[in-house]
């Protein structure tokens, strides 16, 4: 068993995937050992010989980690493909934000992505590009909700976040969740936050207040929790999926989602950043590098959005000092960085906690 223990220690893979790889190696090791015992070898010696025949544990673990963590160039490029597609669609929209009809090409393309992704999911496939495609195909719900909000906000106290959370909560309730406890948590998150926002009085000046900012932050966190839970359930808990795919889903969803409403140059910048991130994320052979890429993405993205918000506010308050502006930039970037890195890092954190729990159970 020394060989198997050494490989397990060195195998840098998410939990579910690691279990499957180890089960396969263990079966091989046991078959060789049983054959040696049948041919008259001492059982203790047979175990050692079986391990030797399998090779050097560090070599086997390194090569398996690399194969599983690092997608091929084809898969990595396929995973990044929806990002520039979004850019083309943004350019091709003649009346940005004016009517639902202007977003039709956008909706059709991502509708096709959604149908294709669901088809793949139903066949039990969990490829790395599928996570990105599915995340991208969820964006229209968010995009459409903006238009829905503009249309109805004159008469109804509806908010974008309400629509988003209801859509996501509906997806979750629609049978994705098998565990009752998780299902109830998802419904509670999906309903409580937006409902609270709807009850909140809608005044023009409220946007400036700290109370309103906290409220929006709370709603964003609720949305992130829902999306992360969804990604975890669909990818990380599936027998052929893993935490890295769940994180890529979150990158696709939030990367696209938060690009909405930015100026065209910022969207180009964010698109390039996201293409690089998706390729890095998919190709990186180590989990640690994937997590670092996700955090870096959150930070740079946070800086971009913070700078944009700051430019906007400096027009409103031209008398603000550079020190105050710098402080605002850092604080806002930090908040955005946490917000965007959170859904990327969370699947890995849940996975790591699960592994730790398993190790503790084994030790007991």
């Amino acid at each position, binding site marked *: 068993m020394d*060989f198997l223990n050494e*490989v397990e220690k060195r195998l840098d893979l998410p939990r579910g995937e690691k279990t*499957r*790889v180890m*089960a*396969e*190696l263990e*079966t*091989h090791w*046991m*078959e*060789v050992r049983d054959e040696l015992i049948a041919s008259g070898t001492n059982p203790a010696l047979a175990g050692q010989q079986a391990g030797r*025949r*399998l*090779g*050097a*544990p560090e*070599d*086997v673990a390194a*090569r*398996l980690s*690399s*194969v*599983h963590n690092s*997608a*091929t160039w084809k*898969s990595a490029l396929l995973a990044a493909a929806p990002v520039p597609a979004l850019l083309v669609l943004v350019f091709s929209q003649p009346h940005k934000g004016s009517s639902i009809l202007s977003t039709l090409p956008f909706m059709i393309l991502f509708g096709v992505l959604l149908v294709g992704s669901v088809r793949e999911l139903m066949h039990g496939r969990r490829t790395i590009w599928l996570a990105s495609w599915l995340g991208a195909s969820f964006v229209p719900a968010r995009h459409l909700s903006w238009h829905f909000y503009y249309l109805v906000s004159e008469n109804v106290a509806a908010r974008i976040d309400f629509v988003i959370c209801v859509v996501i909560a509906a997806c979750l309730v629609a049978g994705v969740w098998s565990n009752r406890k998780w299902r109830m948590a998802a419904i509670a998150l999906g309903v409580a936050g937006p409902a609270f926002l709807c009850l909140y009085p809608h005044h023009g000046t409220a946007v400036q207040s700290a109370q309103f900012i906290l409220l929006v932050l709370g709603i964003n966190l609720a949305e992130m929790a829902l999306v992360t839970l969804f990604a975890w359930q669909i990818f990380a808990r599936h027998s052929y999926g893993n935490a890295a795919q769940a994180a890529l889903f979150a990158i696709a969803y939030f990367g696209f989602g938060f690009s909405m409403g930015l100026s065209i140059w910022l969207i180009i910048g964010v698109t390039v950043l996201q293409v690089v991130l998706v390729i890095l994320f998919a190709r990186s052979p180590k989990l640690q590098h994937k997590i670092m890429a996700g955090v870096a993405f959150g930070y740079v993205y946070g800086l971009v959005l913070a700078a944009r918000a700051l430019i906007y506010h400096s027009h409103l308050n031209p008398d603000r000092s550079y020190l105050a502006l710098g402080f605002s930039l850092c604080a806002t970037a930090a908040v955005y960085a946490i917000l965007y890195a959170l859904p990327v890092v969370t699947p890995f954190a849940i996975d790591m906690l699960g592994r730790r729990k398993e190790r503790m159970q084994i030790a007991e």
Partner: protein
Amino acid sequence: MSAPTELVKGNASILILSCLARESMHGYRIVKELEQMSEGYFTMREGTLYPHLHQLERDGLIEGYWETVTGGRERKMYRIAESGKAELARKREEWSRFQANVNQVLGLAQCGAVA
């Protein structure tokens, strides 16, 4: 005499695909088949077979599935996919051409040395 490790590594995918083209097999069986068919020439560190198998699976050239064997033990079996069959045909063709050219060059080199 066994084949040089680098040569086996470089040609592992064609060897695995041709084994699986005959029937579905698990990892250990593939190793044994390769050894038997080559009369002991192709021996490999058995653990190093799995990175090749998993890569082929990720590329969609082979498909893996679990089956329960006697004693309730589970083992992963592999079968060749349609795209794997096409890839094998392409690799066979490539190999034949490569082999013919190497033979030709080696033949010429020998002639030159004799002259």
